[in-house]
């Protein structure tokens, strides 16, 4: 067993300290150690990422946070609408604030808009995924009652095109989306702040490709493996509309997607991926559970969204409405 540690010796005694415990001259042994080494290092690298350090939540924490943001906003908007009408008693009769689930349903609708538009522009899936994750992160601490998801969506799309190096200038972008440049540029700073200036997002697509390569090396049915891979990619697309990106690591989601795809294609997952040991199983199973039962995996009916959006118009914060006198 050998490990490479980054040399902390500032005097530079050795450029990279390699410590070998046993005298494993056996070549196969070496190759194995090297393989483990690579995995360990990649894991360590991921653990340095902003995604790992700042954007991991438990489901309970996510639920709490969203409830808190929603409640605070409602209290504040009530007061502001009251002030505008000079008294809280004067709140409009039809005023009904959005519940967290309704906010999420509306966001799910706009997430799928991102998918459509980016597909139309033939952008790679990870660019789409980045825009979606930006929007998800933004709405962790904000509510659609303060910032309409359509504007935030466009801003996240515009920003993702920059951070993923597929820049489009603002004129072309807004012309294509029939929007005003100011709607996007005014929100860009705010979105960046809410993203805590963390622009790198890791998605399951790349690890999925890595696993696919690994499985290719031992497969005896390339055609079926190819189908498995494509099915897994579809599941990853679906996972973007759930909370999985906050709950699990990209490689775990990728592996879970492959596992489900293998079951569906009756492809032997366990024997081709032995090295992913049993301790992972509970994780893979909970990811599978989300992918199979979370209602957000399915697109909501357009009429439902329209109804939510109609109510949203009545309960927007007048303090954030430029036409309001506040």
């Amino acid at each position, binding site marked *: 067993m050998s490990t490479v540690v980054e040399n902390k010796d500032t005097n530079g005694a050795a*450029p*990279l300290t390699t410590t070998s415990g046993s005298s494993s001259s056996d070549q196969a042994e070496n190759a194995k150690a090297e393989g483990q080494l690579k995995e360990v290092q990649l894991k360590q690298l991921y653990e*340095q990422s902003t995604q790992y350090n700042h954007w991991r939540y438990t489901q309970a924490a996510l639920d709490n946070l969203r409830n808190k943001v929603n409640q605070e906003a409602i209290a*504040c908007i009530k007061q502001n609408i009251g002030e505008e009408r000079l008294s809280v008693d004067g709140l409009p009769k039809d005023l009904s604030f959005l519940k967290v689930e309704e906010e999420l349903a509306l966001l799910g609708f706009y997430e799928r808009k991102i998918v459509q538009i980016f597909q139309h522009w033939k952008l790679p899936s990870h660019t789409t995924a980045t825009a979606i994750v930006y929007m998800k992160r933004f709405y962790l601490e904000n509510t659609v009652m303060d910032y309409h998801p359509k504007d935030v969506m466009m801003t996240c799309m515009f920003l993702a095109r920059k951070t993923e190096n597929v820049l489009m200038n603002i004129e072309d972008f807004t012309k294509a989306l029939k929007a005003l440049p100011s709607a996007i540029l005014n929100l860009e700073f705010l979105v960046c*702040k809410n993203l805590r*200036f963390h*622009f*790198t997002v890791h998605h399951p697509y790349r690890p999925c490709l890595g696993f696919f390569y690994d499985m290719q090396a031992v497969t005896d049915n390339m055609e079926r493996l190819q189908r498995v891979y494509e099915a897994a990619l579809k599941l990853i697309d679906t996972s973007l509309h759930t909370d999985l990106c906050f709950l699990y690591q990209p490689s775990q989601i990728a592996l879970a997607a492959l596992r489900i795809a293998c079951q569906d294609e009756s492809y032997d997952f366990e024997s081709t991926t032995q090295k992913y040991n049993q301790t992972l199983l509970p994780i893979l199973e909970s990811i599978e559970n989300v992918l199979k039962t979370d209602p957000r995996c399915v697109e909501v009916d357009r009429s439902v969204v329209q109804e939510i959006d109609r109510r949203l118009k009545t309960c927007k914060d007048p*303090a954030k409405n430029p036409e309001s006198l506040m």
Partner: protein
Amino acid sequence: MASIRNHAEQHNADIYRDYKKDKKVGEGAYAVVYVGRQLSTKKVVAIKKIKIGQFKDGLDMSAIREVKTLQELRHPNVIELMEVYFHKTNLNLVLEFLESDLEMIIKDKSIVFMPGDVKHWMLMTLRGLDHCHRNWILHRDMKPNNLLLGRDGQLKLADFGLARDFGDRNRQLTAQVVTRWYRAPELLFGAREYGYGVDIWAIGCIFAELLLRNPYLPGNTDMDQLDTMFRALGTPTEADWPGMESLPNYIKFKQYPKTPLRLLFTAAGADTLELLESMLIYDPNRRISAREALLHPYFFNKPRPTPLENLPKHVRETPEAAKLKRKAEALDAYDLTSEDGKRLARRLDFTGMS
């Protein structure tokens, strides 16, 4: 009046209030750099102010690239991005403050370099770069002026305004990167698919510059850059570099012969030249990687890298202070057991230039 409910907005305001710019210390193509302080900790910091107002497309790409990459990189040899905040229409990056850069040291002809100094600077540069590459990030603007030096001697990669990630091999990149003198041949021939090799070539040029104390391949135009390169290292053939002739801007050059490096780098040892040569291989696929370079015998052979605290420093100082220091050094020279004395003695002893 409505309260600010946006936590991020509040946080941004808090950070802004915690920093104070004191004095301008540098100006780049798209930013002004100040030395400043964090009021809550009294820590000295550098604040890089990027003017956004002038960009019609909002936040500009250099700023995005710099913030995006530095947020993910934490390494002793990569500059630390401590905070980011907006103020008015400017984006401000709070960076650790570093005294000087490698260009200043190279140009300060009052300093004599020992082989161990060069070795330690190369070591730190490669460690920082290896960390970038392991994170799939290309720096794309390696040059002495972007290698900053701290008071403690640590060297740190800075200026990530051109950096980008390099996950997908098949993606098309722009060839318009890297300051000309440090630009790899594949970039000069307009390659749209390139990789870690462009940073390594640049490091090779920096290595040579440290040995020569002058820019190694100072071309005046892109065309002249190729000419200068081929005069120094020989014109590559298709056999040296398979695929060269099919690069977008390939042009046939006069066939200069390859002259051995030791004819120019007369004082350098065989291991030094071997490492240098493997960084300046024309074929990017055969060029050494940062990791391989770190394992090169050059770094294990004698002389040892000079300890950090003994590395030459370039301090911006008043003429009086400089005079006093020189006097003190001259006195120290008599005491050859002191560290400075040893250093001075070594400076006079050129037999150490293996």
